[in-house]
């Protein structure tokens, strides 16, 4: 899977799950603010990524995944 | 109704529009359900609060409603008859495209705390 394919798929599943427009998910945007995540919906994010890419993000790694670009990096390096 | 006058009692009914009502309810501390939820530690079962929302929506519309979908229901605080003896159940309904169901938005809260927020679709007179 190329990085472009990862980006397209992430945007597609997150837009559906969190009911946001795809174009708000710019590379440098902070995920938590863009998707208005709290402790409950953070679990949705982790679950959607796990379901879509079979990539588990342990709680300990979450602080390193702040922006969308960092999320793509994380998925790319754990596929 | 399953829970009216058994789990809660309606103290006041404020019908703002035919599709928007606020029901002030009193939780009944002697309700049977607390024997099992939990022994020596009465806590309102979240599902009883969901049922209470449905019953208030039925009182507002005068129709039997079927809980077809709960899009999202958040249980934001633990409710007990001691912590929140009186609660406001705020129910807002919007008919769907073919008027077979209501899109519902509801909230259970008192002056300080929100205990539940629910969004869903309740169908009219189905599956009876």
């Amino acid at each position, binding site marked *: 899977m190329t990085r472009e394919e990862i980006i397209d798929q992430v945007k597609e599943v997150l837009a559906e799950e969190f009911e946001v427009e795809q174009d708000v998910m710019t590379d440098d945007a902070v995920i938590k603010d863009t998707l208005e995540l709290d402790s409950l919906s953070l679990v949705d994010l982790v679950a959607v990524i*796990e379901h879509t890419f079979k990539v588990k993000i342990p709680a300990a790694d979450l602080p390193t995944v702040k922006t969308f670009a960092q999320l793509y990096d994380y998925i790319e390096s754990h596929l | 109704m399953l829970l009216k006058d058994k789990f809660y009692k309606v103290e006041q009914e404020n019908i703002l529009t035919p599709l928007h009502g606020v029901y002030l309810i009193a939780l009944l501390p002697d309700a049977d359900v607390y024997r099992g939820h939990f022994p020596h530690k009465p806590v309102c079962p979240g599902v009883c609060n969901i049922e209470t929302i449905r019953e208030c929506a039925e009182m507002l519309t005068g129709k039997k409603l079927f809980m077809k979908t709960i899009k999202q229901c*958040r249980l934001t605080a633990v409710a007990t008859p001691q912590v929140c003896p009186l609660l406001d159940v705020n129910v807002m309904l919007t008919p769907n495209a073919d008027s077979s169901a209501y899109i519902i938005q509801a909230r259970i809260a008192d002056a300080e705390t929100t205990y539940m927020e629910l969004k869903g679709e309740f169908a009219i007179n189905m599956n009876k």
Partner: protein
Amino acid sequence: MVRGVFVFYYHTKIMLYQGEDIKKLIPQRDPIMMVDALVSAEGDVCQTELGVREDNFFIEEDQLLSEPGLIEHIAQSASAFAGYRCVVKGEPAPVGYIGEVKKFHCYRRPAIGDVLSTTITMGAEVNGITIITGETKVNDEVVADTQMKIFTADE
């Protein structure tokens, strides 16, 4: 070996926990116990059962189970699964609270005499909040499915 074969042959369903033993897995008691048996548990998936009886707390005037009864059954099924996973490790069963019900669908309200057969799948866990999915069938018909988030409190 012979004894094992005997047991398997004569009981078409082998339950992991049922009857009074279910109380070791969940904190709810009569009148709101909504699981009869933990049928199987493997990896992240378990199966439970509940027979819908006339005296069930959630039976409405029309003699059908109310939809919140299905939600409670799915929540207690997840709770029984979490309890089982702790008990086999020798730890006490945790107390779980429903934090959120999401994407719940009810297709048909079960009737008295129906046996609910529910599959629970444990999903992602972050900071003590676990996502589970539950699907409830009567015979082979799906009557309800949902996603749920459960807070686990150590007691």
